[in-house]
């Protein structure tokens, strides 16, 4: 195994980082959070950069690179749901430039002549309130429906930039041709890995800000970053980050190469991202002291994104439970 970005991948990462520093600065995220500013221009930029075109699972590492950088920038667009939740479930239905989401549970499909009738309510649907299309997972397969067919309510969540919605379908009739892939398993692995990389990016942002703070904030006449307690916390955060990043890109690589370990690797990616988030959130917040507790400090957005990610699609503990059971089977 050669576990290193190639030069194209490094270029993609650097480009993404540069573009997002300009197009998705902290001020934009704050403007979205405080004033409901429209992230549409950023969404269009993402499309122009071709990132929405990273729909082939073989490009999962590249998609992951983009997602990590978007996580670091606390992306206010519906890119994560579109690229890692909808598209893998409905690769043929993806519409260039149109946001889309996935309804992963809560809907049942009933056979009705040539077609099907979908009903039910799903909560916690990422970007369900601003999607044009929904990929609806049911026991009978995955159906693609226009969002206009659903009743959608945004749920207030603690991450003020994140969109989460309750989606209801009431006797929505769909034709058999709207039915897509039967097994949502592989799509779920992409969703987990994508979310893990988003979290790694958000954690990196917390860490960047915490390190800046440690270098500049002075106490007892010296920068707080010179105290061994702070230095050692920073070292532990660094280790948690490189561990989580490695496992996340490994999952991306198994998806790209359709390796049989992809299921286990995706669970490890999500679990490690959750553990990293736990440590980085806690140490990072503590390191900022009271400053971290204010609305005015930008670290809040990354903290909330990382924590929200940890709670979605199964927590670290839930994934660890799965890892232990599947480890020997996967013969990693």
């Amino acid at each position, binding site marked *: 195994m050669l576990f290193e970005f190639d030069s194209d991948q490094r270029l993609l990462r650097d480009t993404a980082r540069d573009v997002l520093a300009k197009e998705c600065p902290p001020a934009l995220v704050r403007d979205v959070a405080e004033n409901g500013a429209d992230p549409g221009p950023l969404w269009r930029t993402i499309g122009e950069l071709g990132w929405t075109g990273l729909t082939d699972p073989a490009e999962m590492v590249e998609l992951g690179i983009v997602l990590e950088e978007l996580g670091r920038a606390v992306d206010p667009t519906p890119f994560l749901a579109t690229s890692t939740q909808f598209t893998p479930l409905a690769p043929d239905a993806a519409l260039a430039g149109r946001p889309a989401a996935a309804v992963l549970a809560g809907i049942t499909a009933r056979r009705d002549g040539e077609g099907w009738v979908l009903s039910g309510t799903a909560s916690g649907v990422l970007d369900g309130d601003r999607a044009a299309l929904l990929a609806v997972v049911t026991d009978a397969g995955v159906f693609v429906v226009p969002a206009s067919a659903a009743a959608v309510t945004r749920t*207030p969540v603690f991450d003020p930039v994140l969109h989460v919605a309750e989606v209801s379908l009431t006797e929505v009739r769909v034709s058999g041709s709207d039915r897509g892939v039967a097994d949502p398993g592989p799509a779920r692995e992409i969703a987990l890995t994508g979310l893990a990389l988003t979290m790694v990016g958000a954690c990196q942002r917390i860490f960047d800000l915490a390190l800046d703070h440690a270098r500049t904030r002075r106490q007892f006449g010296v920068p707080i970053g010179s105290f061994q307690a702070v230095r050692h916390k920073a070292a532990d955060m660094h280790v948690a980050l490189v561990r989580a990043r490695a496992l996340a890109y490994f999952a991306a690589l198994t998806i790209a190469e359709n390796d049989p370990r992809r299921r286990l690797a995706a669970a490890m990616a999500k679990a490690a991202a959750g553990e990293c988030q736990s440590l980085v959130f*806690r140490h990072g917040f503590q390191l900022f002291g009271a400053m971290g*507790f*204010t609305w005015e400090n930008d670290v809040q957005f990354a903290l909330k994104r990382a924590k929200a990610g940890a709670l*979605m699609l199964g927590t670290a503990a839930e994934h660890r439970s799965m890892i232990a059971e599947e480890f020997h089977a996967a013969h990693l």
Partner: protein
Amino acid sequence: MQLTFDADVEAFRAEFVDFLDKNLPRESEATQRSRSSADIPPWARHWQRVQFDAGWLLPGNPPEYGGRNATLLEQYVHQMELSRRRLSASFNPQGLGIIAASLLSFGTAAQKRDWAVPILRAEITAALGMSEPGAGSDLASLRTRAQRDGEDFVVNGQKIWTSGAHDADVILTFVRTDPDAPKHRGISVLLIPTDTPGVTRRPFGTLLSPNDLDFNEVFLDDVRVPAANLVGDLNQGWAVANGSLGHERTLLWMSFAERLEDLTDDVQPTSALERDRFATLAMDAQALRLLGSEALARAARGEADTPSLSALKLLGSESVQTATEWALEAAGADALAHPARTAPESPFHHDSYGAGWFSRYAHSFAGTIAGGTSEIQRDIIAGRVLGLPRG
């Protein structure tokens, strides 16, 4: 060692329980919440006055100040009965515990009459002006200055983290009155009414919401304060800080014990892993209560041992943080919702139990940061309890 208190303390407890049974407002009367730590809703003002008049507000005080000269152990069981029911004696806790207490210890008769009693009777509310930008709560580097000018002091400077200032009637303000004296000498304490010209209060939001307003910046520009508002002697502010504020800190462990006990009620483990974590929480709660009662027994004998309290603060604050983080994780995607209820709202407590696990976890950092961070507590333990050399 004994599992129960002596009979006289238990009789005291029974009397207070009886008072609560007869006088606590009905929940339907107590619907209005406070919006900051210096905002008391009308029903709560009334309830505080009932406690004051009955001598149950601060039982350790003499009757004219809302108490009944209770012993330390009696005060402890009083607090336990409050916390068991999730009651706060006041919705302006720093008014009671710090400002009024400081005035009763260091104030003039007039100050007690004009400020302490109204605070205790919930006629006015108070805030504490201590921290300054860049200095944390390190009094030694205080920069707000007060210069004597005739019958007044003229105050200039800035405070931060002044909880409730925008709703408070008065701020107990630490100021430097002798700029040439070293570090913590030369500090004095002034009562500054918030309607004094030159006082500007800017509340700012927490990470939970821009509208979650308790913290304030307070700007003091040529604020004229009558010399009669000087609390304690000139340049003796350090003594005031170490008085009731120091006393408050020795009781800090109790607030963590209460939060831990609340968590053992509010957290419902549903898996083997969650049960494992719950057990740790339950043990922490019990251990903290035991260690606290040991410290209290020492204090009741008049044997103060402040450094040893650092272990209690560290254990309590870190445990609350760990437990709320676990609870947040255990709640999973349901915990995204904001606000979300994690426990029945207690209308009689100034803490909001209904604000969601993310909020309870975020608030836990106040515990590990304010009143000396966990890192500072560890340093105190290492140096002053264990006698390790300083770095």
